[in-house]
């Protein structure tokens, strides 16, 4: 019998922000399938105009309560590029450490609190306290470790206080770094145990595959997060200066958020994109976790983005230990960064938990920002979520309605969208 579906889910839970999906199926034919983003724009780019360069990173940090460190760092990179400020190797190491802290914080929040309940067949992490309390304990412990790392390097867990143009206003002590190193070492077994719990339930992830274009930073000698060139699985490596022709933002009548496209109708950014492009550069612990889940590059199942995040937590832990070792060996020096005002334009790009983030500023003769543009990962994933849904729905159309709803929600959750960050929203409506 040809299927009719008329389902409306107003709020998808366990994502950051709000959004909707509309699906109309009549006599087995999809009449409407739409990822709707309704959240009001927040005008951060307009807020930045006229602001002094010293204020930009603290303002843009407020774009997001999850990836505030990433926004601050992208902002600093764009500002420093515009002003021609050189930063020290020590600053690069500490910023990489801060970014690892955020990556761990955000990824464990998504893997543990938002996505894992789907695997365990629960509505939230709370019912897991009864039967899966060991998994919950391990997840909370990793979250705490990530928080204390961000707290130490940034001055607090969210919205960094210690960043400034050219460097840091306050450095951690060597003793504090040593203590963090111990915590990270102890955390490795906690992560292995959490991975074991998730592995036992990973078969609940839908077996779905759709090849798309993947875009992420790439670098020669490390798994790129803080720096690198832009790589596309379709078109190869591009300099950062080409970012506008890689992202091509556009508007749709039904969305308050922008969409992007490059070589195809859509592309994907985030942990799976990074894994597909840079997997060979992962450390041994990350490779061990990936092998546990049979995750190999390339992988075209967007649901595996959650597992790629788990792999990245391992890499962040391992690389953080290596960075701390380097800082301990070289010692920490108080620096007085030299910052001179000069007019110019600068682009800052880095990998934040949900994918590649671009900030692009123009600074005038007075040191004020005269133009600003921010291209956020979730915006870049919107078109890919839509195309995934279009490929997925025909394969699940004959399943019970509740299962269709759950599968679509899981797909959205797999992208770990930060809708507030991109001023976007999700809402599923089948009519």
């Amino acid at each position, binding site marked *: 019998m040809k299927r009719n579906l008329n389902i409306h889910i107003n709020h998808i839970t366990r994502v950051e922000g709000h959004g909707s999906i509309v699906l109309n199926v009549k006599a087995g034919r999809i009449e409407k399938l739409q990822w709707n983003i309704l959240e009001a724009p927040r005008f951060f780019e307009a807020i930045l105009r006229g602001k002094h360069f010293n204020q930009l990173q603290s303002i843009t940090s407020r774009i997001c309560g999850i990836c505030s460190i990433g926004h601050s760092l992208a902002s600093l990179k764009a500002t420093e590029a515009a002003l021609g400020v050189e930063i020290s190797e020590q600053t690069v190491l500490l910023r990489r450490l801060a970014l690892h802290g955020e990556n761990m914080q955000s990824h464990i929040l998504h893997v543990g609190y938002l996505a894992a309940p789907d695997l365990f067949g629960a509505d939230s992490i*709370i019912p897991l*306290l009864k039967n899966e*309390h060991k998994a*919950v304990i391990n997840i*909370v412990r990793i*979250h*705490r470790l990530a*928080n204390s790392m961000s707290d130490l390097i940034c001055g607090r867990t969210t919205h960094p206080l210690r960043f400034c143009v050219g460097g840091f206003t306050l450095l951690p002590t060597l003793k504090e770094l040593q203590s963090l190193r111990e915590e990270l070492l102890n955390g490795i077994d906690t992560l292995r145990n959490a991975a074991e719990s998730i592995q036992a339930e990973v078969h609940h992830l839908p077996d779905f595959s759709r090849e798309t274009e993947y875009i992420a930073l790439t670098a020669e000698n490390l798994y790129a997060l803080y720096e690198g060139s832009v790589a596309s699985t379709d078109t190869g490596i591009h300099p950062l200066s080409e970012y506008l022709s890689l992202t091509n933002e556009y508007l749709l009548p039904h969305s308050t958020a922008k969409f992007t496209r490059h070589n195809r109708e859509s592309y994907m950014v985030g942990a799976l994109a990074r894994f597909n492009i840079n997997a060979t550069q992962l450390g041994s612990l990350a490779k061990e976790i990936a092998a546990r889940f049979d995750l190999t590059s390339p992988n075209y199942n967007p649901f595996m983005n959650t597992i790629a995040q788990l792999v990245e937590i391992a890499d962040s832990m391992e690389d953080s230990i290596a960075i701390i070792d380097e800082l301990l060996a070289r010692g920490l020096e108080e620096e007085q960064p030299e910052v001179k005002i000069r007019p110019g334009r600068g682009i800052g790009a880095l990998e934040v938990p949900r994918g590649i983030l671009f900030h692009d500023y123009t600074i005038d003769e007075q040191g004020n920002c005269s133009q600003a543009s921010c291209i956020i990962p979730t915006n870049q994933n919107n078109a890919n979520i839509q195309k995934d849904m279009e490929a997925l729905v025909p394969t699940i159309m004959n399943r019970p309605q509740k299962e269709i709803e759950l599968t679509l929600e899981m797909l959205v959750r797999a992208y770990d969208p930060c809708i507030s960050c991109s001023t976007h929203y999700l809402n599923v409506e089948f009519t």
Partner: protein
Amino acid sequence: MKKIGVIGVGNPQMGDDGIGPVLIHRLNAFPLFSDTVCFIDGGTGGMTLVHELAKLYTAIIVDAGDFGGKPGEFRIFSPEELVSVKQFSGFSVHEWDLIKTIEISKVMEELPEHLHIMAIQPETIAWQSKLSKILESQIPVYEKAVWKLLKSATE
């Protein structure tokens, strides 16, 4: 070393919901009589509260709570009482934060040795950045109650 902490929970942009953080900022203005005491603005907390509770030996959580009292009235509950009250009323506007936080802290074996929940009956929970007049007028009473709990905790 674990500390004695007062955690104010709530959103000051939602009228009386913000009584917890408002009280914390008032208490922070007083000189501390012991360096083992800390005041924490728990905001709308969620999982953050789990991490905060782990650092405390004694915790006093101040929150707007509907326990069926008159606006401005307050009561002090133990965690066990809180769960039983929750079964017959909506209790906290931060139901998830508080009760679930306590559940997670228990599973983590990190629940403070002594935990008091000071629930203040709200009058207005709505978009406004000030308390209702009745709660505003009762702040000295709430402060006194918190100091009394702190005094007995530090003795």
